Structure formats: structure tokens, C-alpha cells
């Protein structure tokens, strides 16, 4: 299946670049990053806090059906230019992953289309490579759990 999101992760580097074109005018794309109720819908996480301004802080949290917190992330906004740029830190709490620095740039391509370029800088090459593995490992875990449930554990 063709995927619209491009990931540029050159070997031996500690950053990666995510690029994605949207069938959305620039203002709507940017709004999706700025309004807590909207962020919740597409990130699939609860937004405890989101101060969309320079030096603002944010915190996301996801819980399982039993109410246990399974994921929490927080960060601060370093630079915020509406419809142009967000620079922020991002850290997953209670994990061995150090804080990351994220550069998000928003560009209008036409009246109805826009482009997001997101550069994420990790603390080291190893940290970036481990982060790339994470969904792979999670996929393995999910498949494993599903197998276990199939066999009535």
C-alpha cells in the first residue's frame, strides 16, 4: 500500500525527517496541532495540558480500559509562529528514551493543500535507532498477545 508519509532516516544520523502533504488548507493543518480537543482525536491520547504559545507546556496521557496510565508524554514549546512553525521538546515519561527536540514547519502548497515537515533530533544515534524500532517491537507484542488470547490464555 502506498503511504503518503515520508520518513527520511539516514543511517548513522541522530535525527529523522517526517514529511507529509495534506489535503487541507494551511490554517486547518496548523489548528490540528494547536487545539487540545482536536489533538486528542488524531493523536489518540488525552491532552492534560496544551499551552500553544512560546514557552508553553504540554502533557499527553493515554490510559487502558481499566484506567491505568500506559503512556504519558510532556514537553515545552520553544518557538511558536502561527501557521508557520512550532519548535518543542518531547519526552515520553517513565521510559529510557531521552527528551527529543522537534522542529515542525508548516507550509501552504495551494488553497486546499499544505505540507508538514517535522525534523526530530534525538540525543544519540542509538536513541534514534531504538525509537525507530519501537513500533516494530510493539507490533511483535501485539501479535503475541493476540496469539495468546486466541489460545484462551
Amino acid at each position, binding site marked *: 500500500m502506498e*503511504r*503518503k*508519509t*515520508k*520518513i527520511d*532516516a539516514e*543511517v*548513522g544520523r541522530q535525527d529523522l525527517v*517526517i514529511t*507529509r502533504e*495534506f*489535503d*487541507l*488548507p494551511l490554517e*486547518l*493543518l496548523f*489548528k*490540528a496541532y494547536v487545539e487540545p480537543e*482536536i489533538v486528542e*482525536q*488524531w*493523536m*489518540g491520547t488525552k491532552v492534560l495540558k496544551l499551552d500553544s504559545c512560546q514557552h508553553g507546556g504540554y502533557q499527553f496521557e493515554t490510559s487502558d480500559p481499566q484506567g491505568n496510565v500506559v503512556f504519558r508524554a510532556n514537553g515545552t514549546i520553544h518557538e511558536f509562529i502561527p501557521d508557520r512553525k512550532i519548535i518543542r521538546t518531547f519526552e515520553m515519561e517513565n521510559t529510557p528514551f531521552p527528551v527529543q527536540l522537534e522542529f515542525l514547519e508548516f507550509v501552504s502548497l495551494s488553497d486546499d493543500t499544505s505540507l*508538514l515537515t517535522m525534523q526530530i533530533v534525538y540525543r544519540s*544515534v542509538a536513541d534514534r*535507532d531504538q*525509537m*525507530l*524500532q*519501537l*513500533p*516494530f*517491537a*510493539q*507490533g511483535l507484542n501485539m501479535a503475541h498477545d493476540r496469539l495468546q488470547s486466541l489460545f484462551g490464555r
Partner: protein
Amino acid sequence: MNLRRDVFQAIADPTRRAILLLVATQSMTAGAIAANFDTARPTVSKHLQILTECKLLRQEQSGREIRYQINAKKMKEVAEFIAPFRKMWDDRFNKLEAVMKKYKSKK
């Protein structure tokens, strides 16, 4: 999982990446490869050994010569390794687009 990390470590070196580019379209002997670098011959041999060990390079016996060639299948594996990461972001962005298109039509 460990094997994949070794491959990443193998191609983390710029000289080794350059070697892979050299033999991407043609097989070459160790001597011909080394001629392209200012590095000492034993160092280049060490690089070739690392690349061969993690299967990014294949060896072909051609008479008395050994020729090195890129293992395209292995390179493809390396590229596909980030597929789940890309899927995760792609799914998120698809959701973002869907949410905002609904938002737009509601206004």
C-alpha cells in the same frame, strides 16, 4: 532483533556506505574498491569483512579473484525496517486529515 542493529552499525560508517555505493551496480575486487579510497588497504579489507559478515555484501569467486557485490535483498530489508514507524505516523496523519476535513465541512 540484534542482527538488525548490527546492520545499522555496519552502515553507520561513511566509508562503508561509500563502498556499498561503489558496488551497487557492478561487482568489484577488493583492490579495485580500495583504489577509490585514501585509506590504507588493511582498513578497507576490514570494512569489507564487516559488510560481508552482516550480509550487505556478497562474495563471488571469479577464477582466482574474489569480487564483491551489494546484496540488494539485505539493503531492502534495512529500508523496510522503518516501515512500522512510518505506518504509525501515516495512520496518525490520515486521522488528522479526516478529523480536519470533517471540521471544515461543519463550519
